[in-house]
């Protein structure tokens, strides 16, 4: 068990590709830290540098307070779970789990006891004599976990360990991985591209984009107070509605396409910096749940959208609408195929299940104005103070 700290870590590959740029993150002892970002954002590279499978170009990596840049993976005392599990197909489950201990020349009795204990934690006791080829995807995943926990390492590293599982199993294993991590209390770095996994599993979440750190915080803070447009768009599903807008000259109204939304004084009090943007363009963000239908007894400035598609989920309706304002797509936050299908001015709202609505309707939303986010149009940074 050990804290891990990355100080201005850089990775430049031989071909000149700068994969990780000045990454500084601290992972507390026993903390579950998730590294998340779109594919190619450098999260796996960062993890592999912590593991010692990849050289660190510059910066300092400390594990347990000790500089670890030049240590071998073995010396770092880490355990890693790979996306494809990397189980040894020619060894039994027991041999797979016990391999690292065998290399340490642990006495046979002690080794067997530890393997058995790990198997019990993971519910693999009945499968110890099988080969990985005879196991299901979920069981293989658990063997990979077992191989990691049996070593009692100071740090767990996991590289998208659940992405090979089907959706239902993934949800189960999400809870399972968390349970095991809490039980053992080992600092964990968990890499995923799935923001839902990041939100549900992490004590804290590090968001990366093109090798650059975007924000590190608890899932709730990331959701409520994203530092920039990228984090705002990346975290949350369905993602935040982001539109180009123009702030009125008195900063008391907002022009969204052809519609005007009144801004109450309280919005400006909470964000004094907004006064500097009077008459200028800003990007505004609204989570789908902050756009209830007017008829839900909700109060707030009105916004009218044309309904394009309705997904009735039983407890609520997810309404896809369009307005005539320009929709902002944070580059990289949404994958390209998905971005290509987003219509001009398209947005998503969650409204009550009982609201009568059909495709083609003009629906009036009551904007939950206090929850609206403002971003600088050129820098993409949040306007908060």
């Amino acid at each position, binding site marked *: 068990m050990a804290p891990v700290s990355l100080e201005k870590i850089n990775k430049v590959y031989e071909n000149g590709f700068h994969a990780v740029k000045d990454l500084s993150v601290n992972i507390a002892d026993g903390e579950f830290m998730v590294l998340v970002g779109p594919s190619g954002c450098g999260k796996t590279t960062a993890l592999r540098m912590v593991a*010692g499978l990849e050289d660190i170009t510059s910066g300092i990596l400390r594990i347990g307070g000790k500089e670890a840049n030049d240590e071998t993976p*073995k010396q770092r005392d880490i355990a*890693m779970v790979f996306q*494809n599990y*990397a189980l*040894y197909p020619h060894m039994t489950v027991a041999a797979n789990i016990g391999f*690292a201990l065998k*290399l340490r020349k642990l006495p046979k009795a002690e080794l067997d006891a530890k393997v058995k204990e790990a198997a019990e934690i993971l519910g693999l006791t009945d499968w110890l004599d099988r080969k990985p080829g005879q196991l299901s995807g979920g069981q293989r995943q658990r063997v990979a976990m077992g*191989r990691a926990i049996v*070593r009692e390492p100071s740090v767990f590293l996991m590289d998208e360990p659940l992405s090979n599982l089907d959706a239902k199993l993934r949800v189960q294993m999400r809870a399972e991985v968390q349970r095991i991590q809490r039980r053992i209390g080992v600092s964990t770095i968990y890499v995923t591209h799935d923001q839902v996994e990041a939100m549900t599993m992490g004590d804290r979440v590090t968001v990366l984009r093109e090798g650059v750190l975007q924000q590190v915080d608890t899932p709730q803070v990331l959701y409520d107070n994203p530092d920039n447009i990228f984090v705002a768009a990346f975290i949350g599903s369905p993602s935040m509605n982001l539109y180009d807008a123009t702030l009125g000259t008195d900063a008391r109204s907002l022009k969204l396409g052809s519609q005007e939304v009144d801004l109450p004084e309280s919005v400006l009090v909470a964000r004094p910096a907004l006064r500097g943007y009077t008459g200028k363009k800003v990007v505004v963000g609204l989570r789908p749940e902050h756009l209830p239908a007017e008829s839900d007894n909700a109060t707030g400035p009105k916004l009218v959208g044309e309904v394009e598609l309705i997904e009735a989920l039983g407890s609520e309706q997810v309404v896809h609408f369009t307005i005539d304002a320009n929709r902002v797509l944070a580059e990289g936050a949404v994958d390209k195929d998905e971005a290509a299908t987003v219509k001009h001015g398209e947005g998503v709202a969650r409204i009550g299940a009982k609201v009568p609505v059909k495709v083609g309707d003009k629906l009036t939303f009551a904007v939950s104005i206090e929850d609206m986010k403002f971003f600088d149009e050129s820098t993409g940074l949040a306007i908060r103070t």
Partner: protein
Amino acid sequence: MRNRKRVGWHRYINGVNLAVLITVLFILIPLYWLIASSFRSPNSFGTATLNPAPLSGGNYSNAFVAYDFGIYFRNSLIVSIAATALVLILGTLAGYALGRLPMRGKFPTLVILLMISVFPEVAVIAPLYLLMRNLHLLNSYPALIIPYTAFFLPFAIWILRNYFLGIPKEMEETGRIDGASPLRTVWTIVLPQALPGLFTAGIFTFTACWTEFLMALTFNSSNNYRTIPVGIAEFGGNFNVPYGTIFAASVVAVVPIGILVFIFRKFVISGLTSGAVKG
């Protein structure tokens, strides 16, 4: 539907089965002929026959007693096993390096290897002969072991490299994290998974060495170092061709390869296909 299940006698007698039968017979009849003729009495005249009765082992004893076939068999075993072992050891190391380790000029190396593996022996036999003579290696085991290793190594490297490429890199990385040394990683993690590839490369090399004729004839002409193919070819003299003995010797020569392939057939098949798909 064309693929409907065949019923009644159609299940056994149909076009597909007939084609298979003809193909198998086409291959097996010469082999049967060879075996049958080898068991004829050494004194029976004429060439081959399909009915060897009365059976006799005379040809076999002739081959071993009168014609030194035992020496040839021993020579072939020594040369083939030594060359195969060398090819596998070097091929594993080279294949692993070309498949896994970061190094410059991988692609040109692989292309050159491929070119060497299809190079006709005849083209280099004369210079090789001079080389061997200058090295005083003519009529010795190394005279064959060295060129066999050189000629059959490229193909083995290709097979093994493709095999190593098919093993996920993460396995080796897990090994590293678990604290295994590189050699330990190759030995306990990589090689067990590459066994089919090793068997395939091994059997191909062994067969190639076992049946090689031209170099064996050129470099090792003395009776003490002759291998089976050359030995059999030189049975008899100017006025007599002892077909029966030749047949018997040929049968014995086929046996080791038959056994090898029979034991390792499963591996050879999977080795060939996986190389084909993943290469």
